[in-house]
């Protein structure tokens, strides 16, 4: 076995591997540093979990839909490298939203309050130049008459208050005329302040609305269900139940609206600033429950009911954890982590050098190789699978210094044991490795096992730590097998090492072997 081992070849392979990693890491046009978690560069992390009633189960579909809507919303914030990830599945799924950098405090609100749903009285409608679309402009019951609204009708007297109240950024009526639904970005959604007037479009871009401040907001709605009318004919409809204060507001609003002419008898259901539906009100609705009917298909009715119930999300969400860290603090944490790591590494290097001397130099080189390799893998994984280095990951790396160094210690102690047995250096190095290898693998396996289990069974920061620890354990094995052993074997064959100076760290004299006995084996 010993004869077949070629240290130079092993070293070459290792060095080529490292160079390959370096080239891959520093490919032009790519990121050359590890992707930092938000605790190292500041930002907001929100962990959301679906709120599911007892006995209910989430479908993967609902989850996927929720994620895509949240992702849209996060993208809407316009912060580069924002992320929405999901961990786990079914009822125990967690949605983790990460927005780097300094973010406004309202970000969390916007995510958490699933979406803003407002009921706004319609001031004006513009169906645009082409034919009016058959949009689900329903009416609010009892009587369900699809409303053939006129193409354009602006009620000038109603446009007076907006001109004064909207932020002074020009004439409200002019802005209404100027808005082109097919070109504008209003459809991508925006924050909708219920106290302000709003000019916006229907969600398919076909219809333009000028809307008054909201009479009702989403929280006024208790429940919404889609269904067919109980008796007889009619298409799909959505039944609404208001909360007690909501019912009162709704009664006031419908009383006011039902007295007006079309289109001012309509109210628009506005979600995130986009009109979902604009039913007209035929009479005052006092009971706190209403039916929206019209030419709905079953799917449209269900979708509308969902929107009314949860905002746009198909499921309710609860905030598990919110963390907002300023970039300054993040930077401080990163610095502290690096200083602690550097200082710890330095202490370990000094200890290894003093105790193992020449072997210590090899240990230090191996540690450096492991550190370099870890860094490169961090960068590559950051690009490849979106691995982010968090503070707990840095801690994992620092802890791993000890575990990595331990592999060398086991190896070196075994070599020294063999020399104490009276074996020659060359033999000791080979046999020491054979024995140490088993121990290193068994011990590293336990480390790897714990890292893997932690990774699969945990959420958030624990994961980052486990991943780093597992990764470095693998790096450790690579370095110990390819680099350390090769280097020890190569240097062990040098004249100086064989001469057994006390600086070699494997001097037979210092290890208590008489020179006369060292030939015994």
């Amino acid at each position, binding site marked *: 076995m010993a004869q077949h081992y070629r240290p130079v070849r092993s070293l070459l392979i290792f060095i080529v591997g490292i160079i390959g990693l370096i080239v891959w890491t520093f490919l032009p046009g790519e990121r050359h540093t590890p992707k930092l978690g938000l*605790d190292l560069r500041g930002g907001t992390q929100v*962990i959301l*979990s679906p709120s599911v009633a007892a006995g209910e189960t989430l479908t993967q579909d609902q989850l996927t839909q929720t994620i895509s809507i949240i992702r849209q919303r996060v993208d809407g914030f316009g912060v580069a490298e924002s992320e929405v990830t999901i961990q786990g599945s079914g009822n125990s799924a967690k949605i983790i939203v990460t927005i780097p950098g*300094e973010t406004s*405090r*309202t970000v*969390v*609100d916007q995510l958490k309050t699933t979406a803003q749903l407002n009921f706004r009285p319609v001031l004006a409608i513009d169906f645009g130049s082409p034919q009016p679309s058959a949009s689900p402009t329903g009416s609010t019951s009892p009587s369900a008459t699809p409303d053939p609204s006129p193409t354009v009708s602006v009620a000038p007297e109603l446009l007076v208050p907006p001109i004064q109240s909207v932020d002074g950024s020009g004439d409200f009526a002019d802005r209404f005329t100027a808005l082109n639904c097919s070109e504008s970005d209003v459809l991508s959604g925006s924050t909708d302040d219920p106290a302000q007037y709003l000019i916006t479009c229907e969600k398919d871009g076909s219809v333009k609305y000028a809307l008054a401040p909201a009479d009702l907001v989403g929280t006024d709605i208790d429940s919404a269900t889609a269904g067919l009318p109980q008796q007889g004919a009619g298409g799909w409809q959505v039944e609404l139940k208001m909360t007690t204060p909501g019912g009162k507001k709704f009664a006031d609003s419908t009383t006011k609206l039902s007295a007006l002419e079309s289109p001012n008898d309509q109210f628009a259901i506005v979600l995130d600033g986009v009109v979902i539906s604009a039913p007209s009100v035929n009479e005052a609705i006092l009971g706190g429950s209403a039916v929206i009917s019209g030419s709905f298909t079953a799917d449209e009715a269900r979708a509308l009911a969902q929107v009314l119930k949860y905002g746009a999300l198909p499921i309710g969400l*609860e*905030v*598990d*954890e*919110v*963390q*907002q*860290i*300023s970039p*300054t*603090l993040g930077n*401080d*944490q990163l610095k502290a982590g690096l200083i*602690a790591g550097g200082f*710890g590494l330095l*202490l370990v290097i000094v*200890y290894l050098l*003093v*105790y193992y001397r020449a072997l210590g130099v090899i240990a230090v080189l191996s540690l450096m190789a492991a550190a370099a390799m870890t860094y490169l893998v961090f960068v590559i994984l950051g690009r490849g699978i979106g691995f982010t280095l968090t*503070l*707990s990951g*840095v*801690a994992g790396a*620092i*802890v791993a*210094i*000890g*575990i990595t*160094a*331990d592999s060398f*210690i086991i190896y070196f*102690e075994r070599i020294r044991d063999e020399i*104490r047995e*009276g074996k020659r250096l060359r033999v000791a190095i080979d046999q020491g490795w054979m024995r140490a290898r088993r*121990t290193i693998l*068994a*011990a590293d*396996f*336990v480390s790897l*096992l*714990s*890292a893997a289990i*932690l990774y699969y*069974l*945990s*959420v958030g*920061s*624990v994961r980052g*730590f486990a991943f780093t620890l597992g990764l470095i354990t693998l790096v450790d094995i690579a370095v110990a097998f390819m680099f350390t052993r090769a280097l020890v074997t190569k240097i062990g064959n040098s004249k100086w090492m064989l001469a057994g100076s006390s600086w070699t760290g494997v001097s037979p004299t210092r290890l208590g*072997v008489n020179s006369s*006995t060292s030939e*015994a084996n």
Partner: protein
Amino acid sequence: MASLSQLGNSLYRGDVSYNIVGRRKTWYLVSAILITLSIATLGVRGLNLGIEFKGGAEFSVPLASANDQSVTQAREAVIAAGETPSTVTVVGGKTVRIQTPALSTEASNDLSAALAKSFAVEEGNIKVQLVGPSWGDEVTQNALRALLVFLILVAIFLSIYFEWPMAVAALVALAHDVLITVGIYALSGFEVTPASVIGFLTILGYSLYDTVVVFDKVKENTKGIHGGSRTTYSESANLALNQTLVRSINTSVVALLPVLSILVVGVSLLGVGTLNDLALALFVGMLVGTYSSIFVATPFLCQIKERTAENIALAKRVQARRKIGDASNDLKPVVAIGAPIVASAGPRQQQVKKPRSRRSGK
């Protein structure tokens, strides 16, 4: 350092040998006292759970220098904003940390704005953390589930790689480490955060890692002893312990140095935080872990092994042989702690398995 090398030589050959296995009652007593204390403190004081486990809101306001006055100021600001501060503390001399019961995000935004105004800092620099009431339970549940799966898998691995008594002994040492570490947390009142939980979980890995290294040597030393009548299982295991003692010391030093560096740097630069929570749990756990892999795991293993028929027979044979071989019957298998370190002269060509303890017969 040189003397540690010398000690290593002597330990390896058995010139100096600490009778660790033979004194197991002493170690058990030490551990029993520590564990009893841990459980008692846990029962009486409980753990100081962080906000992540209780649910609530936490605001960290960075200041040029924080003192008692800042605490009062923060408390007043919180009360003025219409909330109740549950704890207000100075952290690391530069941060005031305010914890309140669970808040809505709106209320938390208002409060963070109020704090920013009161301390004249930018609102963006205030670190805010909101934790839902069920989050902590979930973290705990996840950790416990991870622990259970880990223990089962490790027990299987150790049973295959070694043998089941070693798996049992390793797990006993593990339980010992976790209990004592948790006990120290209860006793000191250090806050338990998810980072400390990570620390606890890492200790599991580390403690086992250490035990695996020692057991590997025990396995090697006890291989084939049943064919002869020279050493008992316990004596061989004890030799293994002594031979890996220098390794254990070196490894522990090397593992503890970085952790210590996190603690020192972390406290001086950041005050209390993730790094320190983690490092503290690790520091305590690693110390206890090293102790247990030497003083608990192996003695316990010997206790199980000495009950097997083949080891009882072996012990009898060894005893019989020693009675015949030495009339004075004063063959202590080991030299007590503090014995002079004597470099032995003369050719040493024995195999590892030969009893070093018979040195006195020369």
